[in-house]
């Protein structure tokens, strides 16, 4: 078994959150991605063993959800929203230029393994369009230039901070652990709300 005793103990702790253990399959898949970067065969096997399922049952779940990756993504996984609203407001232009800038296709990874790009669907931030997510952190109100700077920064090892998120951008693996329900202690960092979120409240108080 390639997973450490500590990692196995974390998996056991995740399973105890639920009244029935099969419910732990999703956080366990996020957890495997936090160790391996994607859903590896070893990961599938350990989950199957823990939950007393066939590996095929775990694979069937894993392949249903787009956030579970069957091959490695970059340390910084860039999702560009190209659902209608963001697409029209600039998401399409951003997506096309970034693919060209990095010389990769949709779902591609740069040769240095630093950056991968995927077009994503509406990410519940339309009032901040055009929206880009990196490791599922918000980068609001983007332009072609700002996303070029973002990916260049990421490749050089100093990506900018999310607009609504922690002070520094964490890696794909680190954030996968958060999605598995393992706290990184950063909840208090960053804004409580950006300007659009606050606009109605401001107007209700007579503000411009």
């Amino acid at each position, binding site marked *: 078994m390639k997973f450490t005793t500590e990692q196995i103990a974390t998996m056991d702790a995740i399973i105890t959150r639920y009244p029935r253990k099969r419910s732990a399959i999703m956080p366990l898949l996020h957890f495997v991605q936090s160790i391996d970067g994607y859903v590896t065969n070893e990961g599938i096997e350990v989950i199957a063993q823990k939950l007393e399922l066939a590996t095929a049952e775990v694979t069937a779940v894993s392949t249903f959800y787009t956030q579970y990756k069957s091959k490695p993504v970059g340390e910084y996984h860039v999702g560009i929203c190209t659902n209608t609203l963001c697409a029209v407001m600039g998401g399409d232009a951003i997506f096309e230029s970034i693919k060209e800038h990095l010389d990769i296709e949709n779902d591609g990874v740069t040769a240095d393994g630093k950056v991968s790009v995927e077009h994503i*669907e509406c990410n519940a931030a339309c009032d901040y369009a055009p929206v880009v997510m990196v490791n599922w952190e918000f980068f609001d109100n983007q332009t072609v230039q700002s996303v070029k700077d973002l990916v260049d920064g990421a490749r050089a090892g100093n990506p900018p901070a999310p607009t609504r998120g922690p002070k520094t951008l964490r890696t794909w693996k680190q954030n996968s652990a958060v999605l598995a329900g393992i706290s990184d202690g950063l909840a208090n960092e960053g804004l409580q709300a950006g300007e659009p979120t606050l606009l109605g409240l401001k107007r209700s108080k007579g503000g411009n």
Partner: protein
Amino acid sequence: MTKLTPVLSAHWDEADSFTIAAYKRNGGYTAIAKALEMQPDAVIQLVKDSGLRGRGGAGFPTGNKWGFIPQGDNKEHYLVVNADESEPGTCKDTPLLMANPHVLIEGVIIGSYAIRANYAFIYIRGEVTHVVRRVQQAIEDAYAAGLLGKNILGKGFDLELVLHVGAGAYICGEETALLDSLEGFRGQPRLRPPFPAIAGLYAKPTVVNNVESIASVPAIVKNGVEWFSAMGTEKSKGFTLYSLSGHVTNPGQFEAPLGITLRELLEISGGVRKGHKLKFWTPGGSSTPIFTDAHLDVPLDYEGVAAAGSMLGTKALQIFDETTCIVRAVLRWTEFYKHESCGKCTPCREGTWWLVQVLKDLEAGRGTEADLDKLLDLCDNIMGRSFCALADGAASPIISSLKYFRQEYLDHLAIGGCPFDPAAATLFENVGAK
């Protein structure tokens, strides 16, 4: 002057609004003390009397839904909060949870007490890491404060609350698919009946409610039925979050009584993008039939929007001005439905695929006028013939756009391509774009 009524959003402008300290400072966690003094049935009655309707899209009365849970059945009951928020255009629950997760937790405690559930879940979409952090932290802080766990506030009520993080599947917002996903399966809708109230999570009585629905409960308990029902319209009571996005001067969240109009919201916010005019908009996400500038005065409540031929849905007002090509917009939404179709039933799985093919040709100016009828024919075979409402949502933009903008489809055929310049619709000058 302003018609706005910030309740959920009232303290979002405080920098620490998401912490338990701020929530308590602003009067939070006082409604549970009141609710736990009441009989559970009395809490259900209160929510029924308030007229609160589900904010997740369908507008089903929340108190009635709670009342369907069988009592004294010696079974476990579950409350599951739907925080999957993935309907295109919808962006209200996410900022709410980012700015104030505790109001949801307080609502979860009250709701669970009312339906006699000792286990509750928040199913949140997986693509919002920082919101996950905030909600997880809030749950931990609520446990530490004795607001979750055993014998809450010494009143003998126990509640475990678990945050469950999704992994990118729109269909998991549909409540029965959500339950399958939470049980550890592929998220595919279930046949109903049985409804979740009878056989939901682990085949036990379960309530599934939207974030905003549950988060509205503490204020109702605290301020009373009359206060709540004084806002809104006859059958659509209370305040709600409207999300304005797209080609507007100032996008954002606006909390207002149900029944406000888009004209009023645009006046308050600053109007359509300068120098442009409104072309079409969605009243409640992409699954609700589009409206045009003829619908600016439609009251945005459940009845008003339905009477005008659409649905209030999630109150996601996506605004598009005259630079936007309707065919491009509709094709993109249709690609979304094709991608998100869970594949369980043939009309939706195959139908959305064919819709994309036909729309792609039309956008490129290929095809004939007969293809427009083919689109409607396909929609006819998908709507009402599929397993869940995703398929109906897929047909909405197509049918409604053909109703209002048929000529624009024909214009594509006439010139053999798209008459619009996509750069004109973007928010930025295309500096650096090819």
